[in-house]
């Protein structure tokens, strides 16, 4: 009886520990060489180090692959390190932005902020005085107003594109795309020229809402369209086969099935407009006092609070106030985004 050895399936293409250590040590070598270059040549500073490190590491890995395998693999490795460079360059700003806002912003946060407005304070006052109640209220009112108008329009557009698929579907898809490219300042100018100057002759919160609506509709329409497209056609066919009219199918089957998707569309729409500054500067004015009436009077907003503290202040307090406002705005965006991810990650239907 000879014991037959069954060959185990191997993975010859996998990177072995030996190769990994070899590559790792090459990168470490590049690191040391880059430090030496910075020390002994004209290149200097962080930039010089980063540049020489990148090119040295790429070159060393290129040579290693050339020796181990062939020129194809070596060129491949160069592409790999350039792709890595791309993603690192993309990530540096986001890390820098978030850390700057957190480090500079926490000084501008104080519990009093939530209960007071800036009516009696200048931006240069200590953080304990004044607050952003008016800004939070203004932003929530304007965003809510924009949502009330743009959600129905956005969803109807999405329904037209996915359910009716009429002969205008293609042009409308294009127009929604084009609308998402409308500069925010143009949205502000439009409300200014069509409503503020000829009709109300006064800046107010509702004008801010309308300007934001223009920016919000495309986001909602496109997200809702994507979400409705995810609903399997079987559901629609089942509805129609049971004798339901299209209206009953859409209202009773498709929309309920896409409910979490539509909530995602709302959330992404809010995230899109919550930090918009330029149109609000034009049409809702900048209020420093709490204003609960969106139909008249200038209305404050979170972006305006930040804008004013940065531009009119100049003291430590004003900057801390501005970065604090930015931190709150960023926190809102993070929360909205997390919610959207959570809802979007769940299975539809």
């Amino acid at each position, binding site marked *: 009886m000879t014991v037959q050895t069954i060959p185990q399936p191997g993975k010859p293409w996998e990177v072995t520990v030996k190769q990994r250590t070899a590559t790792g040590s090459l990168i470490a070598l590049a690191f040391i060489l880059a430090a030496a270059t910075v020390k002994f040549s004209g290149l200097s500073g962080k930039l010089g180090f980063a540049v020489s490190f990148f090119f040295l590491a790429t070159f060393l890995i290129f040579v290693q692959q050339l020796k181990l395998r062939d020129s194809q693999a070596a060129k491949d490795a160069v592409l790999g390190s350039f792709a890595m460079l791309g*993603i690192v360059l993309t990530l540096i700003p986001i890390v820098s932005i978030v850390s700057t806002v957190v480090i500079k912003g926490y000084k501008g946060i104080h519990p009093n902020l939530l209960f007071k407005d800036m009516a009696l304070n200048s931006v240069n006052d200590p953080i304990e005085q004044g607050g952003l109640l008016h800004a939070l209220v203004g932003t929530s009112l304007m965003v809510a107003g924009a949502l009330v108008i743009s959600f129905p329009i956005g969803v109807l557009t999405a329904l037209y594109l996915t359910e009716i698929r*009429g002969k205008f579907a293609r042009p409308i898809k294009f127009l929604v795309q*084009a609308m998402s490219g409308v*500069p925010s300042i143009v949205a502000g100018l439009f409300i200014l*020229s069509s409503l503020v*100057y000829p009709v109300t002759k006064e800046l107010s919160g509702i004008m801010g809402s309308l300007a934001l609506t223009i920016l919000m509709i495309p986001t909602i*329409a496109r997200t809702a369209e994507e979400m409705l497209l995810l609903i399997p056609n079987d559901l629609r066919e089942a509805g129609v086969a049971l004798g339901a*009219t299209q209206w009953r199918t859409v209202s009773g089957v498709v929309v309920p099935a896409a409910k979490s998707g539509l909530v995602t569309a709302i959330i992404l729409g809010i995230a899109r407009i919550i930090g918009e500054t330029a149109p609000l500067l034009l049409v809702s004015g900048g209020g420093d006092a709490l204003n609960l009436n969106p139909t008249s009077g200038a209305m404050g907003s979170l*972006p305006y609070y930040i804008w004013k503290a940065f531009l009119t202040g100049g003291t430590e307090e004003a900057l801390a106030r501005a970065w604090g406002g930015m931190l709150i705005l960023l926190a809102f*965006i993070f929360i909205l985004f997390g919610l959207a991810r959570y809802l979007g990650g769940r299975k539809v239907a």
Partner: protein
Amino acid sequence: MTLLENQSAAIPAPREITTKPRLSDQIFRAIVTLGGMASLVILGLIALFLSLKGFHILTEEKFSFITESRWEVITGDTGNIEESNLGIGAMLVGTFLSALIAISVGVPIAVLSALYLTFYARGSAKKILISLIDLMAAFPSLLYGFWGFFVFMASAEYWAKLLNKYLGFVPFFDVPAPIFERSPFIAGLVLAIMIIPITTSISREIFDQTPLDRVQAAYALGASKLSMIRAVVIPYGRGGVIGGAMLGLGRAMGETVAVYTVLNIVYQINWQVLFGAGGNVASLILLKFGEAGPYEVDALMAAGLILFILTLLVNALADVLINRFGKKGR
């Protein structure tokens, strides 16, 4: 027998078989179609109202509104306008200049990181990176602007000095005076950082759609990753990537707040990108709006109209490119 007879009374009359939608459906379709037309109506209204307010400026200032670079209104004692010289030439040049810098820096980085995300990143790292980049696309421009001013400016100024020192013989990188702060170069870099997330996610989506059979066919023929990408992914995704770049260009051209905070807005045509003077139509509108009289406001509307048309054209081109050439390839 009796049972059946009793039931036959309860069976409703069969519905008429027809392809004509019922009344409820007709109403539903009408409402949805109307809602679907909203984007057309809104875009039309924007063009209409901006023209209503701004068109007379275009006829009065004629062609010089686009070519001239002055912004002066001289009012008489009674408040009526005696002389006006309004032109957005410098601002148009500045808009294109900063947007071009933005896409020439941003698009290569975005394409490389899209390649990384599609073909190198694996598993949860890929998911996290994609979420981060989508999140970055949602950051408000206000944040980019102030980050650019307070944090990024110092590094960018240093890079500008290096460029000027070693490439100063190129007319672009020359400066009339050693002022490197708040230059179109820095504004362009901030815009580049703003458009990288959008361009990355569009490119990534296009690369993801590359037919798997072609990718695997290339691998089966012995292609390395580089030659597979060159032979399959790039020809397939080229149009889409260019379209994504155009979308980024449109966004960079219409950007207001970030440019306003970073750039030193000066009324002169400035081709020397490293010199701290420049402009952008959108930031001009924000700058002049506060102090503008009625005539100037109309001129700003005209400037807005031109900006609107420009971004619409760029977006249309992007859309055509993404849809027409997005799905081709070998």
